[in-house]
């Protein structure tokens, strides 16, 4: 089996070389062969629009500047969240035609790629990543004790954003909200005092709800209760309490069209002043930055999701290293670059995320991200998220989303959803 693989790859490589020699500039075959393990590094990622695209462009530029001799073939695959990207990766891995590297999440998420990821422990060692990155990154990029990927940046997930003028109109002080029940009270106040939607939600996909469940559980059950859930021994009462809070919010305080809109439209409600609060990862701030006349603190604000103060729900954007790599040496070059300061600064400032390195000068970042980086550094706890791969496996995540789809998308069956969630993660 390995033999045929090698053959096919060799042929492809040959074809690529020929293509490069004769017909440079044609997709898929371009790039200058750079000696052993050479050929362009083919990078699959899903940043095809908006700030993601800008960030990816910045990343490409930075790479070409630093490694002008190494070919880079950025292959963005958009659509459906990261679904299409994942499908393409899956297809190519299954056909034994892996790309050089692809963007994905580390942590238990790596389990789905069991058997097809290569070892980059030596790289971590040589580049000193184990020292320069936060401990969680060091832990979560290993699978079976060896490093499989390199992080590029981190988003924060336990965020609550608000439209300043709406909360002021309602007379709510967001910073005073320190528990989920306080949040619910504040939503009630917004609902009675203003015409705005208290909390905007875009549930056309299930992932936003699963993600909201994550922070709600963290907010109600605390770090330990949350970690029990993530680690496979959930307390049914904790889960139920979280769902009850969610049900209260969904039944009374979200927008009418929540079920048919996505994150983008939902977030637009904050920008337009149609809604008071939204929970999202901090990528939501990218849209605020791009909106005209919508400034941090004067127009929109941020606080940690009520009850999760002092914590930073962790997320990583990383590049995974497939075994049978078509360009092993150049891929390593790419990964070393990704984990370095230049790449992390270039990418994250546009993406709205923060570096995973602890030694990065944040001066080029905006005030919001600087604040986020401080929170990150100061956080007491950095629990892994559940919807974006760090806390649970892909299978479990899929089961959770099935449960949300089946039991918790209106009407909200707290009992059934609780049972479903507990079953899904219990080991």
């Amino acid at each position, binding site marked *: 089996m390995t033999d045929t693989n090698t053959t096919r790859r060799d042929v492809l490589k040959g074809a690529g070389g020929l293509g490069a020699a004769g017909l440079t500039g044609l997709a898929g075959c371009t790039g200058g062969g750079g000696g052993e393990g050479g050929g362009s590094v083919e990078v699959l990622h899903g940043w095809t629009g908006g700030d993601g695209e800008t960030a990816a462009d910045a990343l490409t530029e930075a790479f070409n500047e630093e490694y002008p001799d190494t070919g880079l073939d950025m292959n963005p695959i958009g*659509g*459906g969240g990261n*679904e299409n990207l994942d499908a393409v990766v899956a297809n190519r891995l299954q056909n034994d035609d892996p790309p050089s590297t692809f963007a994905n999440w580390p942590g238990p998420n790596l389990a789905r790629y069991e058997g097809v990821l290569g070892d980059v422990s030596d790289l971590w060692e040589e580049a000193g990543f184990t020292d320069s990155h936060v401990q969680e990154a060091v832990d979560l990029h290993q699978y079976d004790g060896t490093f499989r990927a390199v992080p590029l940046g981190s988003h924060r997930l336990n965020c609550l954003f608000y439209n300043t003028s709406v909360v002021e109109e309602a007379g709510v002080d967001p910073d005073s909200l320190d528990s989920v029940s306080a949040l619910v009270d504040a939503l009630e106040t917004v609902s009675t005092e203003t015409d705005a939607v208290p909390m905007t939600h875009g549930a056309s*996909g299930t992932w936003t709800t699963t993600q909201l469940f994550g922070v709600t559980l963290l907010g109600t059950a605390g770090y330990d209760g949350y970690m029990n859930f993530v680690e496979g021994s959930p307390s049914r009462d904790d889960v139920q309490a979280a769902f009850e809070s969610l049900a209260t919010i969904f039944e009374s305080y979200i927008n009418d*069209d*929540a079920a048919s809109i996505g994150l983008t439209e939902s977030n637009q409600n904050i920008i337009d002043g149609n809604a008071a609060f939204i929970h999202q990862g901090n990528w939501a701030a990218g849209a605020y930055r791009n909106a005209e006349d919508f400034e941090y603190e004067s127009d929109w604000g941020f606080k940690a999701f009520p009850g999760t103060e002092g914590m930073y729900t962790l997320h990583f954007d990383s590049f995974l290293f497939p075994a049978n790599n078509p360009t092993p040496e150049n891929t390593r070059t790419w990964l070393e670059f990704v984990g370095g300061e230049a790449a992390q600064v270039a990418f994250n400032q546009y993406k709205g995320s923060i570096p995973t390195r602890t030694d990065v000068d944040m001066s080029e970042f905006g005030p919001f991200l600087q604040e986020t980086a401080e929170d990150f550094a100061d956080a007491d706890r950095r629990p892994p998220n559940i919807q974006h791969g760090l806390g649970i496996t892909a299978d479990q995540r899929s089961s959770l989303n099935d449960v949300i*789809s089946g039991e918790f998308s209106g009407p909200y069956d707290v009992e059934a959803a609780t049972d479903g969630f507990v079953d899904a993660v219990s080991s």
Partner: protein
Amino acid sequence: MREFLSTARSRLRRAAGRDAGSDGDAERADGDGDSALATDGGTAEAGADVAPAGGTDGLLDRLDDRFGEDFTESAPFWLPPFLLVGLFVYGAIAWNFVISLTEYKGFVGPDYSDLDLDMYVRAVGDSAVIDATVNTFVLVVAFTIVALVIGMLLAILVDQKIRFENTFRTIYLLPMSLSFVVTAQFWLWMYNFNNGVVNIALGAFGIGPVDWIGNPQIVLWAVVFALVWQFSGYTMVVYLAGLRAIPTEHYEAAKVDGASTAKMYWRVIVPQLKGSTISAAIVLMVFALKAFDFLYSLVSGYRPPNGADILATKMVREAYSTNNWAYASAIAIVLFLMALSIIGPYLYYEYDKGNL
């Protein structure tokens, strides 16, 4: 006349390269001439006479003896397509079944040495699969029935000797030429919560707005409605052909018997459309099973709107989103069995009618 004919015959013979001789001579000459003429026949005859033992000819003859005269001669026509279909359809289904018995997931090839029914056990206990099965059933049945009824009404209306019949027919069948993907775009916009035609139209009557796609209780029916829009024209065409096949005398006889128009259709015409109904229903059910394309396009992703997950979408999601190949294969087998429960009786019905 006779002279003319005999000269004609002589000319014919000359054309065939023979001398015109006396009748007797001509007759004798016939034998040679004919074998020279029918070269193919001659060779085949010789072959048959010698009856070679064992050779390919013998094998082919034996095959023909067993399966029928033209078996080997027609094989080049039906065998390649049959093998292609056999490999890609039936071979694939068999392989799919074997995969469903493994534990295959992720990217390390299936282990065929350890086969069991675990995936089926898991499917039976998976509430998402059960929901999807129920949704599939509801979708198939509701869609088929509604499309049949609407299609029949359309056909009867169009069959009223109306003017511009072709134009009406063309319009009603138009959506059928669109792909599921295109239809999904149109109906996503039709069902838009804030500014879709449906909600605006209902709003005129003080109803709504209704969250057609977002409400899990409604979305399946909204999907059915959109699919009916797309395919009722197809049913119309099938029924129209059926109606046109009924002799006018039947209408006239019913009229003479004093039946009202409604009675006439209900008692005389509709019962004669049984064949059309069966063939249309089968095709509609198959379309319904293919609703994957539509649901995928609604959300541009593997997870359809809540409440609209069917086996087709669940299977593809399990396979290509979470890479649970074996589990997806097991779901595919369930779906296949559902399809089989529809087509099995249909094929038997066709066989019974002598159409197979």
